[in-house]
């Protein structure tokens, strides 16, 4: 291979790392993403120069088709639907890597028990699992199928058996044992890999999708790395490893945010709301206030912390919330936003939704940064969040024991904007609603927020 092409691949790998490094600050992140895109362009140019392409027609058809679909998806997607978009893009990345491995198998007849053979099987397996698994995650997020876990008896044993069958078929494909047409065996192997992807994601509930999307993101990177081993291309191995690491880190953070182990998410069948006794919920007296009362609580204090949850995004009231924040700041109130790691439907989702609503990013604080401040906060406004502020997490007997929460109950005043007293994903009651310093502000988030804007304007 030409040295200049090798050096271009090296430059591309460096730019990927530097680009990711620039993501360490919102001020440089956009340039970082641009560098990563440049790295990709360089890698593609090097490949085109390296490869003897006799017929450009089909290659251009593929690029054009992908380019149009990708552009349209990126421009049209709503920020609330980012998890779905990332889910489906993961599927395509995994699918592409799997197809590279499959095409390489077809192009190498009589492959036998070689390292190339093993890498092809590995690439096919990871890529296929990513492909179908991501589609199921997408369908769950989009509401095309139930968000509740789909569980059947001996599920984990069945899945393990299936994996064993796939491994055996793989070994037979390479002629390690048994006999038969290697191509047929390989197709059966592909089929099993695709089914495995489906089976691994269906038992996971809708509330756990942030973990799954992160994990599949990691897989799509590993699939690219495996494809790199198949065709002996270093830039694929490096980029894939970077994505694999990134996805794994996000997976761990999401698990930590829910105080669950990855094994518990993957095999626990948790995350639905079935089977919990709700008869006691919402039976205790609460104090409530209207928009005028809430405006008075927020408008005359020194510090307010807003805790947005996904309910805010569902009601599309981020913009109204930002107006509330602006008006309070005009009155000299110090306004901060406290974001729980699992506030949105994917890591960092809520931050993007608030950025879209023009909230300055230096006002967004994560859990570790803000938790010590609640004791000195005059008022907390919780909008559309529930489990992430539930003090039951400190109670050793609760189902959410140990989950990191925002300690809003330590503030002098807590105002909770919510439609009703109904529970969140965990399906349990929230003692915060019944505390002496809590005021419930009932109503639809969008309307309530608009009323609140009017009432704060009315304040003297």
């Amino acid at each position, binding site marked *: 291979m030409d040295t200049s092409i090798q050096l271009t691949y090296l430059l591309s790998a460096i730019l990927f790392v530097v680009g*990711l490094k620039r993501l360490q600050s919102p001020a440089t992140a956009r340039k970082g993403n641009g560098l990563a895109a440049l790295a990709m362009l360089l890698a593609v140019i090097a490949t085109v120069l390296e490869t003897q392409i006799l017929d450009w027609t089909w290659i251009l058809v593929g690029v054009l088709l992908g380019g149009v679909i990708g552009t349209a998806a990126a421009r049209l997607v709503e920020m609330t639907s*980012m998890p779905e978009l990332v889910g489906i893009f993961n599927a395509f990345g995994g*699918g592409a890597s799997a197809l590279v491995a499959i095409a390489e198998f077809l*192009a190498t007849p009589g492959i036998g028990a070689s390292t190339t053979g093993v890498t092809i099987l590995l690439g096919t397996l990871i890529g296929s699992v990513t492909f179908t698994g991501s589609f199921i995650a997408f369908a769950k997020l989009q509401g095309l199928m139930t968000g509740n876990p789909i569980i059947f008896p001996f599920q984990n044993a069945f899945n393990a058996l299936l994996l064993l069958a796939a491994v055996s078929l793989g070994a037979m494909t390479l002629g390690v044992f048994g006999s038969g047409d290697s191509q047929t065996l390989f197709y059966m192997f592909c089929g099993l890999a695709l089914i495995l992807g489906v089976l691994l994601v269906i038992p996971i509930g809708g509330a756990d999708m942030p973990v799954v999307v992160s994990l599949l*993101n990691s897989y799509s990177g590993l699939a690219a790395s495996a494809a790199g081993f198949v065709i002996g291309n270093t830039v694929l191995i490096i980029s894939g490893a*970077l*994505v694999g690491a990134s996805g794994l880190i996000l997976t761990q953070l999401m698990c930590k945010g829910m105080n669950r182990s990855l094994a518990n998410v993957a095999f626990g069948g948790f995350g639905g709301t079935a089977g919990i006794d709700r008869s006691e919920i919402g039976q205790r007296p609460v104090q409530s206030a209207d928009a005028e009362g809430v405006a008075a609580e927020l408008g005359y204090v020194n510090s307010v912390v807003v805790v947005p949850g996904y309910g805010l995004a569902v009601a599309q009231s981020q913009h109204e919330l930002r107006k509330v924040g602006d008006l309070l700041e005009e009155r000299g109130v110090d306004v901060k936003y406290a974001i729980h790691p699992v506030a949105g439907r994917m890591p*960092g989702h809520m931050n993007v939704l608030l950025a879209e609503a023009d909230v*300055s990013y230096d006002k967004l604080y994560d859990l570790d940064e803000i938790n010590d401040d609640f004791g000195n906060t005059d008022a907390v406004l919780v909008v559309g969040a529930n489990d992430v502020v539930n003090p039951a997490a400190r109670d050793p007997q609760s189902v959410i024991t140990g989950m990191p929460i925002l300690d809003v109950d330590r503030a002098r005043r807590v105002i909770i904007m919510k439609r009703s007293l109904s529970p969140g994903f965990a399906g349990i009651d929230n003692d915060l609603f019944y505390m002496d310093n809590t005021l419930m502000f009932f109503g639809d988030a969008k309307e309530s927020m608009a009323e609140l804007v009017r009432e704060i304007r009315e304040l003297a």
Partner: protein
Amino acid sequence: MGEFDLMTGLYVFVLAALAGREVITKVPPTLHTPLMSGANAISGIAIVGAIIVAAKAEGALQVTLGVIAIAMATINVIGGFMVTDRMLAMFKKR
């Protein structure tokens, strides 16, 4: 591919993953969604592999697989980088 050595590949993989971990751990939570969609775009690097297999494809089946692979990887790359840019453009300090 004769010059490609499996062990060297493994070294490259492990070291790249460690470098990735060092860099990515320091990405603040506020940028985790763009990080994920950006990383997603990077996993579209499979486009390189797709072009290589499509270029040497023989017969209708291999050509079809190659073209689908290129299309899927391109969606990932173009869509991923564009949507990440769109998001990052929204992060402003006032």
